[in-house]
């Protein structure tokens, strides 16, 4: 008797739950962020894209997000939490969420997952990333022209392929327009830490750099450059237009909105499938922020021409002849780097001094 009662109760509860799920035809989309939404960089841009999803679909979509989620077990718990609470699609927006995403995806086969910048996929897990190195090529071109000391400073975050690719791309294109250019690289070992980034910028400026490129998210290097007076910078991840027209002369902008909208639409239509997306300037995932008037018109024209050539696919930033730092061959004349090589890039190209930290 008791048992039957219990079972009936459970059945009713299940029925209610199912009914609830049917009644609610909103598509629920979750976002897991590694930083605070106010970082003005990486996480900020992901949250802008989340807002774009809300704007696009209005009442048909409900979004939730959790910010400042540490990579590892905390991430796994937060992703599980979203799946439990009925998310249909979950974007996990940091490389370190890779294994947690895969783990949770195994337990929730009906939920779709999108992991940014990773390489592990599954039936219900897609990966996506942007070809930021295309933006770096534009930056490198401008930097090569703008530097007078011929020293370009570069604030690296972590020595991972993503960042090394950016350094190489910027260097190749700076060198192309200015054979005397030299890169000084400082590793900050952080994605976002205004104090460390400001220190790194100051060190580079003291060493004679008059152009600073950054792969970290805060505006602290911009502020340091402004204080120094004659140093050129570029916005990173977001436009950082508050420092335009000088020191910020242009920027690389992450624009995830088109992708997030398309993927949400795919879930709504039932057409979602696991894919590996790596989009660049062409599809609009990488944006080049307004090149300010501080840049001479002919340099601006050259930079924009390069941008258009990459957008149309007619030019690849890694085109031979190129050698590796140790002098060995990388790409032969006219050869372009394949995606596999780019994805795992762990060497400098010839001409860059110093070694990649280990």
């Amino acid at each position: 008797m008791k048992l039957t009662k219990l079972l009936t109760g459970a059945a009713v509860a299940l029925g209610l739950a199912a009914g609830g799920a049917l009644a609610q035809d909103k598509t629920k989309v979750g976002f897991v962020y590694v930083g605070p939404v106010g970082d003005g960089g990486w996480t900020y841009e992901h949250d802008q894209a989340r807002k774009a999803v809300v704007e696009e679909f209005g009442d048909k979509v409900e979004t939730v997000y959790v910010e400042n989620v540490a990579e590892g077990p905390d991430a796994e718990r937060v992703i599980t939490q979203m799946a439990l609470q009925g998310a249909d699609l979950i974007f996990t927006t940091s490389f370190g969420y890779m294994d947690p995403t895969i783990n949770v995806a195994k337990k929730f086969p009906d939920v779709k997952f999108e992991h940014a910048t990773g390489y592990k996929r599954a039936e219900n897990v897609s990966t996506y990333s942007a070809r930021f190195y295309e933006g770096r090529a534009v930056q490198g071109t401008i930097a090569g022209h703008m530097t007078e000391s011929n020293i370009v400073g570069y604030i690296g975050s972590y020595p991972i392929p993503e960042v090394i690719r950016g350094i190489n791309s910027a260097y190749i294109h700076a060198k192309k327009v200015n054979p005397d250019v030299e890169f000084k690289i400082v590793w900050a070992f952080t994605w976002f830490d205004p104090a460390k980034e400001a220190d790194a910028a100051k060190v580079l400026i003291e060493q004679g750099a008059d152009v600073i490129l950054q792969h970290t998210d805060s505006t602290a290097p911009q502020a340091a450059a402004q204080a120094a007076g004659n140093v050129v910078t570029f916005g990173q991840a977001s436009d950082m237009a508050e420092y335009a027209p000088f020191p910020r002369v242009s920027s690389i902008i992450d624009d995830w909105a088109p992708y997030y909208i398309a993927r949400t639409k795919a879930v709504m239509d039932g057409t979602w499938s696991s894919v590996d997306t790596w989009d660049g300037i062409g599809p609009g995932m990488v944006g080049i922020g307004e090149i300010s008037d501080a840049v001479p018109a002919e340099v601006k024209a050259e930079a924009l021409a390069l941008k258009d050539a990459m957008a149309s696919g007619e030019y690849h930033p890694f085109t031979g002849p190129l050698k590796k730092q140790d002098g060995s061959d990388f790409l032969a004349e006219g050869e372009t780097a394949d995606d596999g090589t780019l994805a795992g890039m762990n060497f400098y190209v010839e001409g860059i001094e110093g070694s990649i930290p280990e």
Partner: protein
Amino acid sequence: MIRLEKRPQPSRAWSLATPLMAVLATMLMGGLLFAALGKPPVEAIRTIFWEPLFGEFAFYYRPQLLVKGAPLVLIAIGLSLGFRAGIWNIGAEGQYIIGALTGAGVGLAFYPMESWIIFPLMILAGAFGGWAWAMIPAVLKTRFGTNEILVSLMLVYVAEQFLASMSLGLMKNPEGFGFPGSRNLQQYDSAHNAELIAGTGMHWGVVAALIAVIFSYVLLNRHMLGYHIRLTGEAPRAARFAGVKPARLVLFCLGASGALAGLAGMFEVSGPSGQVSIDFNVGYGFTAIIVAFLGRLHPVGILLAGGLMALTYIGGDIAQGNLGLPSAAIQVFQGMLLFFLLALDMLTNFRISIGKPEVV
């Protein structure tokens, strides 16, 4: 006139009551904070404290409380020994990192061999790593009289550099396409600190934390060494007369807390976290200081405090997801807890008296 009068003896009743009052005051002020942010205060407090324990998905969150609480308790127990004797190990975060590196290092060195002996060796290596890292401030203090607070804290940043170096170099997964981070030990059976019973969250680290609580209780209440620790903290001069050797006590307290922090790191890297990565450490070593004080440096108190901290973390993340509370508000909320605890702690040693001071 309201005055504070020093109690002749610290009040036992107040020392038990202040943590509870601190939690209540935090709920109250936290509620006001959430209300000021335009979120329903009662709902927010309920989400943080109730949802993980008794909510719809408690079956998932309860085990997570163990996973989140175990390293906090394990580290805080070690710290409490030193804190009681006035020996301040602030660098548990570093010892935690080094313990994880040595523990994982042993496991990775054996890869892909499968044997039952690997995991026990990793446990030993983890404890040894944390112990050795804590011995640096301990020996410097006993030999040269350096300040253990500064040295142990600074060594955290050194340990973080080691961690970055290991993730990018020696321990990097050779099949990881050049990305930083080691192999995932969760996929290596002999080195995996798996759940003892699936779905319970109960892993060896949780067991170790419980054993540490019991050992610490026995040590402090039934053992000569524990008596010396308490005596040194409460009456250093008397302790010297009683024949306590300060140097030995420093070595023991820092060594024990280092070994426990190292164990916590090892259980974390081989279990819930799975891999050595640049951002492996998430501040357990520092949060454990709060847990130790919230638990009144008492083993049972620490056990409860560790659970409470874990609750605010997990509940805080749920509140973010469900109510859209910013994570900064959750951090302020957690900060309030320590703030109120320290503020109310005054009542243990002082009494509020109203009226004119008595004539002596």
